[in-house]
């Protein structure tokens, strides 16, 4: 929230008394003094005053009150002063649109100034003022400036078109500025061309389907010519634009490449990277047997290596890009391993990236060197880096078979260091090595087992358990080892639990006689005592497998594992292609498509590498892009339903009988009623039990009896929810109460689901909660607490849950709230952080309350007071909102609002508009005044307008949201 920032900065400002004169300030009456100085006759004094104003503005102080005085200084022939005033204007014009108009004349006059620097300054500044009225006046001067005789003015005007487009796209199109801008691509001055290209590219990005840039061989030729002549920045704009072009055939593609390659020797790394992007993209179209193709590949390596001698930040950008390039075309840098060796003083972000690339480039030819390096890195200080280095050693073993043995012995050396995280990381990678080369390095298992106790990270524990399970037949005390993990089964992470389950089943299949008890224990832990569906399901599957067909179980569980891939963390090919098209940009740094981090329409378009087309094949291939990359749906974000939805789906599945008719397939028993089948069936199936152990069979049969209950659990709870929801919505009387929503899903709270809403009844704020127990055990000892919040909401009494909440049970609780608790500003303002405790754990969630809960009953203001207050609150505190599509007349609206303590004080009808004046008082004494305008004359016009004025403007948004909710329900 802006006000808070300013507040906090003002505070800093006060404490900052350095010797730079403009940054110091007298505290009281400062604005007043500045006002006097600004209106001084002495030029120097005026200028000093403007400087002080700008200094205040910089540190976030609100100096908008000086607007008229500063604008008065605009009429000056002192260029420096003028620039300062313009700077002020750009900052505050939006908040003072009416007064900003005062400046228009000066702007228009300046656009005619004989000095090109002043003309350009005027047009540049005008474009930065986002006030509609000023924008209108901008059109004519801009038109002139686009055709100005001076290139400096033209290059500034070109950018101004992009600014204007950002404010009012329609206006730019209507005024024909786009065509003028296109003409500038043929301008004689390279800088004008560059800026025009930049502006057009930006505008084109927000109109993905327009043919704005209309690149054709002629215009490309012009761009390539300008490329040789313009500034480094201009070269970047042009290269980035070129990259969007789709050459018609390989010959054109080659000729562009030839003219772009000289840029690889530019001192500016961004020029180099943009050139690399063009080359990487157009290279796709060249036939691989072409001599030129090989030459180009060779030419790419040196400049990429040179980027690594740039400043560290640029190195980082370069390395992120090289990572992509190496994945796309490993041949380019395959001989350059050494340059990626880590230097002791490299910043950590550079080190980690280099390491990544080293692993990708590792091959039989350089593995010895790489390993020596990695071993060195594993003794460094930074934990992340060391871990990555250890992991890299493992990757090398998997990638280069010849080195595996050396890698394993290096890893063993590292384990001997006993440094905790090194040991854990080593064990994780050794697991992968075992997978890749089965039955080769089992001799090291003994060493690994020695370190069992020091493993505290889930991944390492899981890896170790996997190893024990996999090689259970060779480890004498495998059962003891696994059993030791079983003691704290419920405290383990899911990853470890799953692994432990599988490992014990493996062990059982290998040594059935000694481990029956163990396997039963783990199966019952997984199926009965856990509320993790994955774990439970896997438990049941094993159970069923073991009980039905032990031979099949052996085939399934001990099946030969598929080979693991040599490369890891490879970027998915379509994404990689897209990222290659974005070399040098943020997307290539994040390794994410622009749509993942850019808002709005920009960057939504996916870029693709062009397909290879021979010169003879087709001259026109407008859809080259789509052919190459495959269908666009691949990159569409997959929608993962929220947990609530998932539960709902499961419910449907269970409640409704399967709609498919016809003979049910044998496995469909798993669906619903099949549970009983399983329960009963297990016993009979176990008749022919494994290894003839009757005791075990009984064990298997006894447990699943509980299962149907557990499946029913979500059903009951869900029904309860539905019912509650209905109740919430159906409340017609009194104040508006929003429907209950789920605040804490059961998944996050070990089976406790909380949904709720807020209500104000007879002057008391109530938090209405629905607690549902979706777990298997009884819940007791409920308590609730709030974090400090904006309005000091706090529970007025304890949470009244008298009887224990048994599984499947739902109860409704109403908690009265007071507003005398500790206060802390929240973001958003009406956010409330809640902690709920029960016998199982403490859970945290946050919810938002409608601010109308805080509207008190005595919020009706006297008319006179209202008028005076309205005038007293400064205009900038007023915010305007629109409520769309609200079919209410003013009386109905007034009644609805009154029910929520929003009081109408007066009503006025002016020109077919009803104006309602309303007051609200918040529980902390803040008054909010509002003016609601209802169109009565025109029945088609159903939008309501509301202006909210308050001394604390930050509540306006919340109040408005409330009014909207009240009026619409």
């Amino acid at each position, binding site marked *: 929230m802006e006000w808070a920032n300013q507040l906090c900065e003002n505070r800093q400002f006060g404490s900052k008394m350095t010797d730079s004169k403009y940054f110091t300030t007298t505290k009281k009456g400062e604005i007043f003094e500045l006002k006097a100085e600004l209106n001084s006759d002495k030029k120097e004094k005026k200028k000093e005053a403007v400087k002080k104003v700008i200094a205040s503005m*910089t540190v976030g102080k609100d100096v908008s009150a000086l607007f008229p005085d500063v604008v008065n200084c605009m009429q000056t022939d002192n260029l420096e002063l003028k620039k300062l005033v313009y700077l002020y204007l750009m900052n505050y014009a939006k908040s003072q649109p009416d007064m900003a108009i005062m400046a228009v004349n000066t702007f228009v006059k300046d656009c005619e100034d004989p000095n090109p620097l002043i003309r350009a300054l005027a047009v540049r500044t005008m474009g930065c003022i986002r006030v509609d009225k000023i924008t209108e006046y901008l059109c004519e001067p801009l038109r002139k400036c686009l055709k100005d005789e001076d290139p400096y003015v033209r290059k500034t005007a070109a950018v101004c078109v992009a600014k204007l487009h950002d404010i009012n796209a329609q206006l730019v199109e209507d005024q024909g500025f786009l065509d003028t801008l296109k003409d500038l691509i043929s301008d004689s001055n390279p*800088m004008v061309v560059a800026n025009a290209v930049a502006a057009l590219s930006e505008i084109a990005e927000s109109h993905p389907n327009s043919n704005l840039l209309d690149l054709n061989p002629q215009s490309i030729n012009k761009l390539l010519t300008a490329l040789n002549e*313009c*500034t480094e920045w201009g070269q970047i704009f042009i290269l980035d634009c070129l990259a969007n072009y789709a050459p018609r055939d390989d010959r054109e593609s080659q000729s562009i490449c030839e003219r772009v390659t000289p840029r690889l020797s530019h001192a500016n790394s961004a020029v180099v990277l943009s050139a690399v992007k063009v080359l990487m993209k157009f290279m796709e179209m060249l036939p691989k047997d072409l001599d030129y193709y090989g030459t180009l590949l060779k030419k790419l390596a*040196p400049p990429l290596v040179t980027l690594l001698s740039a400043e560290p930040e640029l190195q980082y950008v370069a390395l992120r890009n090289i990572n992509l390039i190496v994945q796309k075309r490993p041949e380019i840098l395959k001989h350059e391993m050494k340059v990626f060796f880590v230097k*002791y003083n490299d910043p950590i*972000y550079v080190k980690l990236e280099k390491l990544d690339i080293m692993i990708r480039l590792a091959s039989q030819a350089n593995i010895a060197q790489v390993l020596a390096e990695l071993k*060195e890195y594993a*003794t460094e200080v930074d934990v992340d880096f060391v871990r990555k280095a250890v992991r890299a050693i493992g990757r090398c073993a998997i990638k280069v078979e010849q080195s595996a043995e050396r890698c394993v012995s290096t890893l063993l050396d590292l384990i001997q260091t006993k440094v905790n995280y090194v040991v854990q990381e080593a064990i994780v990678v050794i697991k992968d090595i075992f997978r890749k080369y089965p039955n080769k390095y089992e001799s090291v298992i003994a060493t690994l087992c020695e370190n069992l106790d020091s493993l505290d990270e889930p991944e390492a524990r899981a890896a170790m358990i996997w190893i024990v399970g996999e090689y259970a037949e060779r480890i004498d005390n495998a059962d003891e080892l696994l059993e030791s993990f079983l003691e704290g089964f419920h405290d383990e992470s899911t990853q470890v639990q799953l692994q432990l389950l599988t490992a014990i089943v493996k062990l059982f299949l290998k040594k059935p006689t000694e481990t029956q008890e163990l396997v039963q224990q783990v199966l019952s832990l997984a199926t009965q005592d856990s509320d993790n569906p994955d774990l439970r399901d896997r438990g049941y599957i094993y159970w069923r497998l073991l009980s039905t067909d032990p031979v099949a179980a052996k085939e399934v569980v001990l099946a030969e594992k598929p080979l693991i891939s040599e490369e890891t963390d490879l970027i998915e090919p379509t994404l990689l292609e897209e990222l290659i098209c974005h070399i040098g940009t943020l997307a290539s740094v994040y390794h994410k498509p622009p749509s993942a981090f850019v808002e709005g329409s920009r960057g939504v378009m996916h870029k693709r590498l062009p397909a290879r087309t021979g010169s003879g094949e087709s001259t026109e291939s407008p859809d080259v892009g789509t052919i190459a990359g495959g269908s666009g749906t691949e990159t569409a974000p997959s929608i993962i339903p929220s947990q609530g939805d998932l539960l709902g789906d499961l419910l449907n599945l269970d409640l409704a009988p399967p709609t498919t008719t016809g003979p049910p397939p044998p496995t469909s028993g798993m669906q619903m009623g099949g549970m009983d089948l399983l329960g009963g069936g297990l016993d009979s199936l176990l008749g022919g039990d494994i290894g003839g152990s009757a005791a075990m069979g009984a064990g298997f049969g006894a447990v699943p009896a509980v299962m149907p209950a557990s499946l029913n659990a979500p059903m009951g709870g869900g029904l309860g929810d539905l019912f509650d929801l209905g109740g919430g919505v159906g409340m017609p009387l009194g104040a508006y109460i929003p429907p209950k929503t789920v605040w804490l899903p059961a998944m996050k709270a070990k089976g406790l689901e909380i949904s709720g809403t807020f209500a104000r009844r007879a002057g008391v704020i109530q938090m209405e909660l629905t607690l549902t127990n979706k777990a298997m055990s009884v819940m007791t000892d409920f308590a609730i607490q709030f974090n400090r919040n904006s309005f000091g909401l706090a529970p007025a009494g304890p949470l009244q849950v008298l009887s224990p909440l048994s599984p499947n049970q739902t109860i409704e609780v109403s908690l009265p709230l007071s507003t005398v608790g500790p206060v802390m500003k929240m973001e958003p303002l009406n956010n409330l952080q809640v902690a709920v405790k029960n016998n199982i754990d403490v859970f945290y969630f946050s919810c938002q309350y409608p601010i109308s809960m805080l509207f008190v009953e005595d919020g009706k203001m006297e008319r006179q007071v209202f008028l005076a207050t309205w005038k007293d609150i400064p205009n900038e505190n007023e915010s305007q909102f629109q409520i769309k599509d609200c079919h209410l007349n003013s009386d109905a609206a007034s009644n609805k609002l009154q029910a929520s303590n929003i009081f109408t004080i007066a009503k006025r009808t002016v020109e077919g508009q009803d104006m309602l004046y309303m007051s609200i008082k918040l529980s902390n004494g803040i008054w909010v005044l509002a003016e609601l305008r209802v169109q009565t004359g025109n029945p088609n016009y159903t939008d309501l307008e509301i202006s909210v004025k308050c001394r604390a403007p930050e509540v306006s948004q919340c109040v408005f949201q409330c009014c909207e909710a009240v009026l619409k329900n």
Partner: protein
Amino acid sequence: MIGGLFIYNHKGEVLISRVYRDDIGRHAVDAFRVNVIHARQQVRSPVTNIARTSFFHVKRSNIWLAAVTKQNVNAAMVFEFLYKMCDVMAAYFGKISEENIKNNFVLIYELLDEILDFGYPQNSETGALKTFITQQGIKGQHQTKEEQSQITSQVTGQIGWRREGIKYRRNELFLDVLESVNLLMSPQGQVLSAHVSGRVVMKSYLSGMPECKFGMNDKIVIDKAGKGGVTDDVAKSTTGKQSIAIDDCTFNQCVRLSKFDSERSISFIPPDGEYELMRYRTTKDIILPFRVIPLVREVGRTKLEVKVVIKSNFKPSLLAQKIEVRIPTPLNTSGVQVICMKGKAKYKASENAIVWKIKRMAGMKESQISAEIELLPTNDKKKWARPPISMNFEVPFAPSGLKVRYLKVFESKLNYSDHDVIKWVRYIGRSGIYETRC
């Protein structure tokens, strides 16, 4: 494009804040302060994404410069721009410090307005900028129309880096070949990686718009010439030595890149005064001026014996200067005794290192230091990481073997010729990251 640019002091207070785009609000200033400057953890990346807003930052002493954007900008360009911004500021008011920034904040705003328009970098050559952004501010009125258009054509022109009408009584130029040798050597003396990154810095005081051509003993050029047969002898006689293989080079924007690409000739119209003509990198046949031979022996748990020998490896007639060897010591060092044959050596507890300084050393010599390091017993399980021994020095030759063959100056409009220009060439080789593991 860049949405805004902020400058903070080390406490995170804003010194300069300039917003170019409407999508960047005032809260962005605080987001960066809270999430990066005041972050508890060490900065893990120069690019930070906070709530869909990307922040690029660089640090100069304790000043933070941050560029903000909400779009998919050219990241390399943003960093290049930030460096450029630092250069421009330094050219105007010297060191980038809180004091200087506060004292020049009006100037900085003026510069930011000029070199970044709607987030697009514009001409940022200080030579050009200084003609019309001055701290006097009144220049505007006193300029004649010609002067004004000369300024604008220079700012936008093809030769944005040089203005017309420069005159010197004495035409003179200085060429500095500055190289830094980087080395990473294993304890056994095996070169793990070595490269030279060099720069050719030129100071030109030439009249008019001189056309220059620069030549060096680049292998490709000389081989080419050699094939021609005619200039073979000339090439050999002028260079005297064999040619060198340049892995890659980059040039100042004044150099005609297309010409270099096609003919490998370096031609340009130089900016006035000092600038960097080119950068290059070589990895083959590097003369490593020094060799460091370390010997570290752990005597029990509380004592280390270190012996380091350095050998100079260049012509005996040349002198290396400012030699410094830095031998890291463990964190639990309690005392150090050093004996060295030459120079001075000191244990610096605050830097955890023994620093050995030698003022001068001729070629083909060797010198030795030995030290006994007493350690406090610790129960720290982690082994000492043994950082590499690093070295600093300066030598009066180019370790890459690069030689300047010629720098020809042509100015057709004025009456001075190549012979009238006084030319100076100097070679300096310095240590870059010159490390030997121990």
